[in-house]
């Protein structure tokens, strides 16, 4: 294990625009885990919207930008299984052996934050308290592309006072799916409504997940339905930063 690895933070466009606190929580956790964190300014988007829409050239152009911005680091870490999953898939975008090699190198050192903390750094939280009950949704990309399932639960169990309530169908998609949710809103909402019913049935105070897209989807529907469930990214709880406004709550 590298003692103090240089880690490049991949912020994700949703975190950048919608909830910067997740970015700062991620940095805090990485620093607690002994990493030296830098935020490259040349980063924007991982290219997933283009890639998922079939625009391979558009996705490759952004992949090159991410590769160039991050290849100097020991690791690339981001608070999103979905975006890191996209970075891990970069090699498929390139036929050119040079770019493919660089893409493979980057893919091999890119990690979703919770799997990085748990699997690579062997870190777990100490002295974090939250008196609440929470339920956890497994976002699909993290779960199926990166195997993020046990790590968040193991880390959350170390939070004092936090009761984890199992969520029925925790590994079933919430209906977000990136552009899917706006291209097929009817179907998306039908899927989402089953998810929010399951969340409500847990009776938990808090919903946690590891991807802001899924969280915004579920939080937005829960709010429209009048549910009181508060929604946070898992890193916010682990960093002890869940005492402020939850997703959609007004800044004080």
């Amino acid at each position: 294990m590298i003692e103090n690895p240089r880690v490049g933070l991949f912020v994700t466009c949703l975190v950048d625009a919608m909830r910067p606190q997740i970015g700062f929580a991620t940095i805090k956790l990485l620093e607690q885990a002994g990493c030296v964190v830098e935020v490259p300014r040349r980063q924007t988007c991982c290219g997933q919207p283009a890639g998922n829409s079939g625009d391979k050239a558009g996705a490759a152009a952004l992949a090159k930008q991410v590769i160039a911005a991050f290849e100097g680091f020991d690791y690339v870490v981001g608070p999103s299984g979905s975006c890191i999953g996209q970075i891990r898939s970069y090699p498929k975008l390139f036929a050119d052996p040079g770019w493919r090699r660089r893409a493979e190198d980057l893919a091999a050192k890119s990690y979703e934050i919770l799997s990085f903390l748990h699997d690579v750094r062997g870190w777990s939280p100490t002295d974090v308290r939250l008196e609440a009950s929470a339920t956890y949704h497994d976002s699909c990309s993290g779960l199926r592309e990166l195997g993020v399932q046990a790590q968040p639960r193991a880390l959350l169990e170390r939070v004092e006072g936090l009761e984890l309530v199992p969520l029925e169908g925790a590994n079933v998609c919430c209906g977000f799916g990136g552009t899917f949710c706006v291209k097929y809103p009817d179907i998306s909402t039908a899927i989402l409504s089953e998810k929010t019913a399951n969340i409500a049935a847990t009776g938990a105070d808090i919903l946690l997940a590891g991807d802001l897209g899924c969280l915004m989807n579920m939080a937005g529907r829960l709010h429209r339905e009048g549910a009181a469930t508060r929604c946070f990214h898992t890193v916010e709880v682990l960093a002890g930063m869940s005492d402020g406004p939850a997703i959609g709550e007004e800044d004080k």
Partner: protein
Amino acid sequence: MTAQGKQDTFKQRAHDALADPNLKIAIDRTTNTAQTKRTAAVDAFPEFQAARERGAAIKDHVIANLDHYLIEFERNATDAGAQVHWARDAAEAADIVTRICTAAEAKIVTRSKSMLGEEIGLPHALDDAGIERVETDLAEHIIQLAQERPSHIIWPAMHRTREDVAELFFKDHQPPPDADDPASMVASARRVLREKFMSADVGISGANFLVADTGATCTVTNEGNAELSTTPPRVHIVTAGIEKLVPSTDHAMALLRLLVRSATGGEVTQYTTFHCGPKRSGDADGPEEMHIVLVDNGRSRMVGDEFRQMLRCIRCGACMNHCVVYRQIGGHAYGGTYPGPMGAVLTPVLDGLPQSRDLPHACTMNGRCEEVCPVRIPLKTLLKAWRVRSWDSQQEVGTVRMGLGLWGHAARRPWLYHLGTRLALPVMRLFGRGGWIRGMPFASGWTRTRDLPKPASRSFMSQHRKYGNGGPQ
């Protein structure tokens, strides 16, 4: 494919399906049971992962050597006394079957469930030829009474509740069954179908496997209707896709273990029947003629391109049972013969991408379908491959192309992107009340049914630039 299916759009069909509360009840009942039983069957099969690898390897081997096994199968089936026919496309296949029926002067034809039969439009072709067609699978019998198409490849009538079926039987069965008693309903279907089994001139079945080294066809069912459709009539016709080939009986059995567990959660089906040629002298029963129609219909084209892995599909239906989209809209919304994730990959091959462009897009890419696929078909990758073709052939909606174009343009220029974010966030915040946005121009796809959290007043990048790693304290 009905004429209606061509005219209306995927979105319209999905919308109609979502508005039908009975459909949801029916789908939930069946797919929930299927999921539970599959999970239990897989958990009780410790070598399941190894069996999946072997299943995928068997199919890949056959696909890579398709010509070899087709020739071997034809030779052995012919030696066993069957007549082998080759059909390039759906029309040719339906035509071959109809001509065999006509030559046999068939008045009644019994048909055992086969998705390939649906794919080649056989029900319509037989009806058009004036031949009485009797669907003998219980669910297909229901579909025939309702004048519909199957909505699932294992449970064709899964979109219909027990109550719907009671109503159909009450109208068509004489004497009508007791609508409150499923056993009475099954008994009346059995009585009605039994008459037809014994008076049919031709029986048509599909095949789950074509065994190259024996020339046998293999059919699995739970109702015994395939046996009754293929044994009493004078003529037996098998229609099968060319990808159904396996080298030997042993390989068929290996795939069967995966198929049954993935489809119904059972260990084995009630009936697994191998047909090898027609009745021989000294046989007590069996058809006088056996015809096997080998159908290509786009399959050989798939061998040579990125969709070749789709030819592994053994038609178990697990992908649709676990698909969040299928479970909301059911099979008819997909518009083609094959629904769900496997249908979303296959239908563009069969019907053309322009007619089915929505299918690969109407997917959240959550990957659960490939997680449960018993032969490890990378369904997500194949659906993405269709999206790439759709993009490259300019079939994307103009607004989507433009939106992504603008996004990409900015995202490739970090200074512009960060400036854009800095300017856009305060504008977006104007639409918020409290912490939420309930409606905003160009966002109705989102905000019609859910609220949008109000964005941050300053982006992470601009806060980080100002405050560093610690952020605003």
